[in-house]
């Protein structure tokens, strides 16, 4: 049976929200999403020698990796999805799936856990995905600012480092505008070399 082709302009896209466990990814997604964040799970076979809790289980077994996500309808024919990355490093193979086709990523940073952010920054640099670094000032402490974070994480000068309150809709929205603007500027370079 034949039917009318899809409306060419009807589209969905995504932005990845990355950062370590407990840094506020789901809070950020929930602040700006039009739905309560939903959770999707993937099954993975656990053969890790990692140091987190799951690895204390003796046998190799199947476990689930959860990803929280939200959505924003930007126009009748355009939906933006926000995906929080699974936190533990050993599940990063799943990020490949998330990163494919993404506009870019917001790396949320908690000053108390810079290590996790370091790894995320490395990953997106390696993948060539545009990203910005957003320092989550959730406790209101301004002890460290964007300049400190840029230095600590060795963020190249052209990559935006901003402050964000992951609980605040306007703040989260600004971060999304920022990564999208940045992705657009990066596109010029990509298009020229492609």
């Amino acid at each position, binding site marked *: 049976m034949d*039917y009318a082709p899809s409306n060419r302009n009807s589209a969905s*896209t995504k932005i990845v929200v990355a950062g370590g466990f407990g840094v506020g990814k789901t809070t950020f997604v929930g602040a700006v999403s039009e739905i309560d964040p939903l959770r999707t799970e993937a*099954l993975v076979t656990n053969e890790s020698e990692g140091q987190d809790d799951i690895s204390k289980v003796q046998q190799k077994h199947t476990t689930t990796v959860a990803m929280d996500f939200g959505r924003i309808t930007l126009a009748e024919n355009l*939906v*933006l999805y926000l*995906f929080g990355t699974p936190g533990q490093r050993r599940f990063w193979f799943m990020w490949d799936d998330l990163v494919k*086709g993404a506009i870019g990523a917001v790396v949320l940073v908690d000053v108390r856990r810079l290590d996790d952010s370091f790894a995320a920054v490395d990953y997106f640099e390696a993948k060539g995905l545009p990203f910005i670094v957003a320092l989550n000032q959730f406790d209101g402490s301004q002890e460290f600012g964007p300049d400190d974070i840029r230095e600590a994480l060795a963020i190249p000068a052209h990559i935006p480092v901003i402050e964000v309150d992951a609980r605040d809709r306007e703040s989260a929205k600004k971060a999304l*505008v920022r990564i*999208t603007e940045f992705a657009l500027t990066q596109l010029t370079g990509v298009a020229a070399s492609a």
Partner: protein
Amino acid sequence: MAPDGREVAAGPRLVRPYALTSGRTESVVDLPIEATFEVSPSGRTATWPEGDLSGQILDLCAAKESVAEVSAKMHIPLGVARVLLGDLVTAGHLKTRTTISENTTSDERRELIERTLSGLRAL
């Protein structure tokens, strides 16, 4: 209950997940996690045997839900959702809508990012 008021599956399924796909773990079509679908006339009129999830999946797709939402709302793992959705695409019941993919031209990519930016600014 989904935010839009529709009934959704109430809890975790007790079926081994990949039993739903006859053990298949790879979708025949490449489906981005954010992909949404258009339901074709055949998808709207098809009837399904009891226990077949296709009808519920097609209802979600008709409500413009993505691969991720089909997985979340049906309480099936992402990989299972992909296989089942892939089958429905292959059967002609669903057609994927635009996402950024390897086949997207730089003009299309730019256009989609620009639309996203103006949408975000207008929020």
